[in-house]
């Protein structure tokens, strides 16, 4: 259900969903998307500062009209407390990636240089492989992933994005859907 087949286009939506921290809630939330045939592009879940609640950050690539219907249906779930839709233009989005890349002695220097340029960190070193950690805006991760492909990606894992509204001088455009 979570696919990296295509990056979200300009139409992608970020839903920040505050839910009760209970068994089965994630299944309720994700099945609502599945029922309508919407592909969840990425999804990140973790408890909030209040342990009774978790925040689910969902990136979904759909037109806004059907999304309105999904958010309304989501809000009907008893365990969903609050839904905010974040406009990607007005949100800070971050994602973490760890990746193991082939780094033969001949190319290792180039890989390390690129890791430096992207402000990543080497977290593990093997004889001919490096494992790199990189956090940042999802597009930066895309670029880095693309560059690493030349050297041979052995394994890669991304977390899916988390997001918060930008601190605008005016009111933040955090729209509550209810």
């Amino acid at each position, binding site marked *: 259900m979570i696919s990296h087949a295509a990056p979200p286009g300009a139409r992608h939506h970020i839903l920040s969903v505050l*839910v*009760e921290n209970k*068994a*089965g809630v994630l*299944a*309720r939330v994700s*099945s609502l998307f599945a*029922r309508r045939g919407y592909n969840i592009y990425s999804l990140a879940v973790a408890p909030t500062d209040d342990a*009774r*609640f978790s925040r689910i950050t969902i990136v979904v690539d759909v037109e806004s009209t059907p999304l*309105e*219907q999904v958010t*309304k*249906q989501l*809000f*009907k*779930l*008893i*365990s*969903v*407390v*609050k839904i905010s839709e974040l406009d990607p233009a007005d949100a800070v989005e971050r994602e973490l990636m760890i990746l193991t890349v082939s780094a033969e002695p001949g190319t290792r220097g180039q890989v390390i240089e690129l890791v430096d340029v992207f402000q990543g960190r080497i977290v593990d070193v093997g004889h001919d492989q490096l494992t790199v950690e990189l956090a940042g805006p999802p597009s930066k991760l895309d670029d880095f992933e693309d560059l690493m492909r030349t050297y041979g990606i052995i394994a890669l894992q991304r977390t899916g994005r988390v997001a918060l509204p930008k601190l605008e001088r005016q009111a933040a455009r955090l729209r509550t859907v*209810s």
Partner: protein
Amino acid sequence: MKLNGGQALIKSLEMEGVEVMFGLPGGAILPVYDPIIDSPIRHILVRHEQGAGHMAEGYAHATGRPGVAMVTSGPGATNIVTPLADAMMDSIPMVVITGQVPSGAIGTDAFQECDIIGVTRSITKHNELVTSAQDIPRVIQEAFHIATTGRPGPVLVDIPKDIVDPNHPNSAMEWYWPDSVDLPGYKPTVKGHPRMIREAAKLIATSTRPVIYAGGGILKARAAEALRELAELTGIPVVTTLMARGAFPDSHPLCLGMPGMHGNYTAITAMQQSDLLIALGSRFDDRVTGKVGGFAPEAKIIHVDVDPAELGKVRRPDVPIVGDCKAVIEELIREVRELGTPQPDRSAWDAQLKVWQATYPLHYDQSWADDAVLKPQFCIETIRDNSPEDTIVVSGVGQHQMWTSQFWRFNHPYTWVNSGGLGTMGFAVPAAIGAKVGMPGRTVWAIDGDGCFQMTAQELVTAAAERIPVKIAILNNAYLGMVRQWQELFYEERYSEVYLSPDLPDYKMWAEAMGCVGMRVEHPEEVAAAVEKANSIDDRPVVIDFRVDWREKVYPMVAAGTSNDQVILGPEMGEGGH
């Protein structure tokens, strides 16, 4: 006070005011059945768990109180899936308790294990697996709260055996009853937005062709009185959808009756040509709108619903109002009065409606010749005319359902019980039993089809054993009639798998075998006497096998996928009709 989980569960139901429950025991739910012996709650033992679910629905339809059903794990639970889906579609308050295998066995493919929480996730308003005996009172209280507030619906509570089994240490609990529910994510909006209500009142004051489009939400909100006041105050005519029959009296001069695929011409066309639709607790169902793109093209929309997800789901409203129908209608009445603007001259519109009503009434032809064939509509009218005015009428799904909705006169709310959204064949017999249990002083007639009857007829054994004197009229046309109608009209009369036979089974003998009085009626002359005899029997169920004309079709009809401008009035107009 120390209780075991099973005792706590039954005590919680008592605390919720449950007087009757419908169910069938089995392995996993066994420990909960033991304390029932000591409880004042009446338990009605069904013959199939689907029956328990539909009885609970019928009870809820007729009384407005939540229906309660209890079944065991695995097949018991899956057998009640259809009633849950039905209650979800028609917003019926219902609490279903399912047994589950012991906590330690969950996920091991244990005997009679089924992940019923997963199965019913999308067909319940909420469901919950209880993991500790101590949680039982809280979860039951939440279940009733969720089922009955906001937009009502079914809630399923899944109970693992170990937390209710007195022989298991997990079942120990200290009894308590919570002061209130704490559901941070569940706060239904009751009161409409005042500015929107003012907008609605202004829009009403400018409309010359308005129609009130009343849906099942009127009945759920107990808003029939408020609706009547609004209609009389503004003089606006009312259509009542299949789920709202009885929400506004059919005898009222402003009542236009049922709209939709088999609605009457005036109701359909009034909506179609209106300049303002005031949708109150209705959801623009496809059976009402026909082709959505062509539905009521000139109408502005005021849409009132307690469920925000209904607003804009099908048709974008000009004035959306989230709130309880009763609260909003009462506010709207106040606003219309305060606004003080006289209602515009609608005499042309009223005159037009009268012309349509006079020109295109519902009709059928009953012959009285010796070899006359009995018309199903005539049977319905005869039952109607020979039964108390507040009779509760229950139907299954198909032609007989549409004829009943068309030809009965619904003058009181909560006198019509049917499966609208899901269209569940076999609904009528168990739902009628549930309605009669909830309203023992009222006459309850189920108007059923022969196809429907065969799906759940075994519950008449339950009714006979429990002395629940429902009356069943089978409109026996020996066919899956509605399917046959579609095959006749849209599949070039190629009848595929729709013939059932009038004599197999022998309904009279079957009824008698189940402890009911069985009758057979074949000629129009015999109908009234049979109905009167049925109405005089009050100690057991009655089944009448009406042998009706298999050729009879439901008209008017708007063919699926076409616009409501194309109402087929009768066979002379139908493609392939004859």
